[in-house]
């Protein structure tokens, strides 16, 4: 067309004008550390596996999950999910039910028979793992992935450690535990049961290049309570371990549990299920000071367990105990009041904590033990080169999740050590705090409530109390993830750029900036829901 000069122009000719030269700040895509990941003692990439679960690809999600934790079905039941405590979604509505999705994925794996990915080529190195609790299993798994041979020596008759002998069935059905252990065995982890290591250095001589100790803390702490002959005083470890034996422990009609930790709750709830008419927890402080998790306390109360707050047991008689009332001082410590009360009790179970059996470490040079805990460095190595430790024996934060984290960390350190290197964890990116995000974009979607077993059956059977999510709910829950700090391809940057300077690269490939036209306004960064873009000054 013979167009009029200057007044009429050909379409889109402004591409000749490179407005990128206007820019003084440039946007940059980043991956920030989601607070859930940061909070996970096992170091799971939660956002990462949720991201895969969101698209309904549960197997991929599970595979991403088990890179850091081989026990998702267990974890999805027994983990106290500090991730959810860190979840940014709490500031929108409520935390994402990470734990329930994890359980869904773990169960799905068991149901579908998913196996771990083939390990790396064999290195020919052998590592002895002492103890088949979560720390040991985690270490053995990670070592196996890296191509090392991991051999577990377990003193007990069954693998699982405290997961089997400390956590009641109604919280962790044994077939779940067995299934995840079996997957590890199939993966190439070797477990020798009823193989107690009494001297670790001797055991190492048996062709091992390193050792990881994860013996746990199985020795119950005692408290002195004057007691008549007839009164039954038991410890919680024994009671819970007894549950795995041929016959259940005899606790009587009225059971008193002494202590305020999760174990105390577990015992009381177990007692109730064993037929006790009354299960009473006696605790010296108040509910808000109680170490047990609140939701467990709540569940226990629902099941009819009563708790005597601010009380200590002074003596145990034949069929009752004497309890002294306590009062909190201004520092929050309980002080005796001199006020007493008698409570009927057929048995008293002490749940006052556990110590580790460190006898196998006698004569190991360089090793340091402090307050019953073996001391390790940042790479989980003890004072003795080549001897690593983790789990309950190495810390006071005694959860399955912490143990799994210890095992993984130790495995990575052992791998480095075997290569004559020192393990250095990769630098952690900055945390994707909610201030770095634009949470307005997330629609209101309250957390899904997991099904809970009805109260009657909870008082009489060891069926699992907390149910799992079905697929729809699990998907819903996964999709509540805000993907903090990590691009989830919401197209916002692509859409909100006034200069069309964002290139959409296609599914899974995220985006890139077209710096020919980007003027550096920063709308993309401001409107990125998950905080995966930052503005940096242009260099001169």
């Amino acid at each position: 067309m013979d167009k009029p000069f200057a007044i009429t122009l050909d379409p889109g000719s402004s591409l000749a004008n490179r407005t990128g030269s206007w820019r003084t700040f440039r946007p940059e895509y980043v991956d920030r550390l989601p607070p859930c990941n940061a909070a996970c003692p096992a170091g799971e990439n939660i956002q990462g596996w949720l991201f895969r679960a969101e698209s309904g690809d549960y197997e991929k999600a599970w595979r991403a999950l088990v890179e850091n934790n081989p026990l998702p079905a267990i974890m999805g039941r027994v983990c106290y999910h500090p991730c959810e405590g860190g979840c940014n979604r709490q500031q929108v509505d409520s935390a994402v039910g990470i734990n329930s999705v994890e359980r869904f994925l773990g169960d799905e794996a068991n149901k579908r028979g998913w196996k771990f990915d083939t390990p790396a080529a064999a290195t020919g190195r052998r590592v002895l793992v002492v103890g088949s609790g979560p720390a040991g299993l985690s270490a053995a798994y990670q070592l196996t992935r890296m191509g090392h041979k991991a051999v577990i020596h377990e003193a007990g008759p069954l693998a699982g450690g405290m997961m089997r002998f400390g956590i009641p069935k109604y919280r962790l059905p044994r077939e779940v535990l067995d299934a995840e252990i079996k997957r590890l065995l199939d993966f190439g982890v070797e477990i020798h049961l009823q193989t107690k290591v009494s001297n670790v250095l001797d055991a190492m001589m048996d062709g091992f290049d390193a050792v990881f100790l994860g013996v746990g803390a199985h020795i119950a702490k005692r408290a002195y309570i004057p007691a008549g002959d007839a009164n039954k005083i038991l410890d919680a470890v024994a009671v819970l371990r007894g549950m795995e034996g041929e016959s259940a422990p005899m606790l009587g009609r009225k059971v008193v549990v002494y202590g305020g930790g999760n174990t105390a709750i577990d015992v009381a709830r177990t007692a109730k299920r064993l037929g006790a008419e009354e299960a009473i927890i006696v605790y010296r402080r108040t509910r808000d000071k109680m170490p047990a998790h609140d939701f467990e306390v709540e569940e226990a109360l629902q099941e009819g367990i009563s708790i005597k707050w601010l009380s200590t047991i002074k003596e145990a008689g034949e069929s009752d105990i004497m309890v002294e009332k306590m009062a909190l001082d201004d520092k929050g410590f309980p002080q005796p009041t001199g006020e007493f009360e008698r409570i009927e009790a057929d048995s008293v179970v002490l749940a006052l904590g556990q110590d580790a059996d460190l006898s196998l470490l006698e004569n190991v040079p360089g090793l340091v033990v402090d307050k019953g805990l073996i001391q390790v460095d940042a790479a989980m190595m003890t004072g003795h080169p080549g001897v690593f430790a983790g789990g309950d024996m190495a810390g006071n934060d005694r959860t399955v999740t912490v143990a799994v984290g210890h095992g993984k960390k130790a495995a990575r350190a052992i791998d480095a050590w075997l290569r004559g290197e020192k393990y250095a964890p990769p630098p952690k990116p900055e945390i994707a705090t909610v201030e770095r995000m634009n949470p307005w974009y997330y629609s209101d979607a309250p957390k899904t409530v997991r099904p809970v077993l009805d109260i009657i059956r909870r008082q009489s059977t060891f069926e699992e109390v907390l149910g799992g999510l079905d697929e729809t709910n699990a998907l819903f829950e996964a999709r509540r993830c805000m993907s903090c700090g990590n691009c989830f391809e919401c197209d916002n940057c692509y859409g909100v750029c006034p200069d069309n300077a964002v290139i959409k690269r296609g599914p899974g490939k995220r985006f890139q900036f077209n710096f020919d036209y980007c003027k550096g306004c920063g709308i993309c960064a401001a409107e990125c829901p998950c905080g995966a873009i930052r503005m940096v000054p242009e260099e001169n």
Partner: protein
Amino acid sequence: MSFQPVKFYQTGTFTVGNRLLPPEERSVQASTKRFNSINSGHRACQGCGEALGARYAIDAAMEATDGQIIAANATGCLEVFSTPYPETSWQIPWIHSLFGNAAAVATGIAAALKVKGKKDVRVVAQGGDGGTTDIGFGCLSGMFERNDDVLYICYDNGGYMNTGVQRSSATPAAARTSTTPAVGSDPGNVFGQGKFLPAIALAHDIPYVATATVADLRDLEAKVTRAMEIRGARYIHILVPCPLGWGTAAHDTIRMARLAKETGIFPVFEAEHGEIKSVLAIRHPLPVEEYLKPQKRYAHLFGKNPAVETIARIQALADKNIRKYRLQARKEGH
């Protein structure tokens, strides 16, 4: 709601797109095949809300008509930054005639298309608030009352930004502009003046009137799409923050639009034949200060001696909008 909320729990319908949505539920802007009706290389300020709003709207119109759009543009920022000789950013047939005649030019185009039997080709007129509510008001009203087959889109940034931020009849009360400076006993724009053109459009009983902001892309696209399903005079009034004129950070453009809507300052609704059919409810109610404070044009209301009464008057205006248009926050469904 003017659009079917997407059943997607992560970000609902608020983000531009999402990898998990089926393609047909994604926004036009999410598509790699979107038209980019206004292309890169335009000379709009950093963070220009109007450039963004225009691309949102025209791309949606292009999508709705399979690319059969002709646009008439009033003089103003949009025109100046998009078509300085020898470059144009427009990828669609586009004409700029004058400041005050975009609606009439569009009427002419529509008449030409009708007489030539080109039923598929649709006409959009667009202008800023000055070109729409002031100088172009006569032509616009004429286009409305004749029910000409034109969609008129007003990009409202509350002033004559092209000429250096002067007051228009869409400038909000108390706002500072070059012609309503923040001096004297009553600084900024006068209360009780100005007009809300969407309401005047409603009074014409035209088939379709809607408001939108650049902060609710899905809503905006749904409205443009709906408008293109209808024949006759249609009007969409889009709030497009102006970093220059409002004195806001370039990156805050969408945020400001969002705050305008969430505070009730700017009611977002949709009407057919003079009757309001739906409103975009406030999601997270906020006091007007949240909207006013980031803007330098309201800076005189804050500082050492905040103009409490003035802020209260603005809050009252927002509250009135909330009552009048029933914008109260309500529970979001899944």
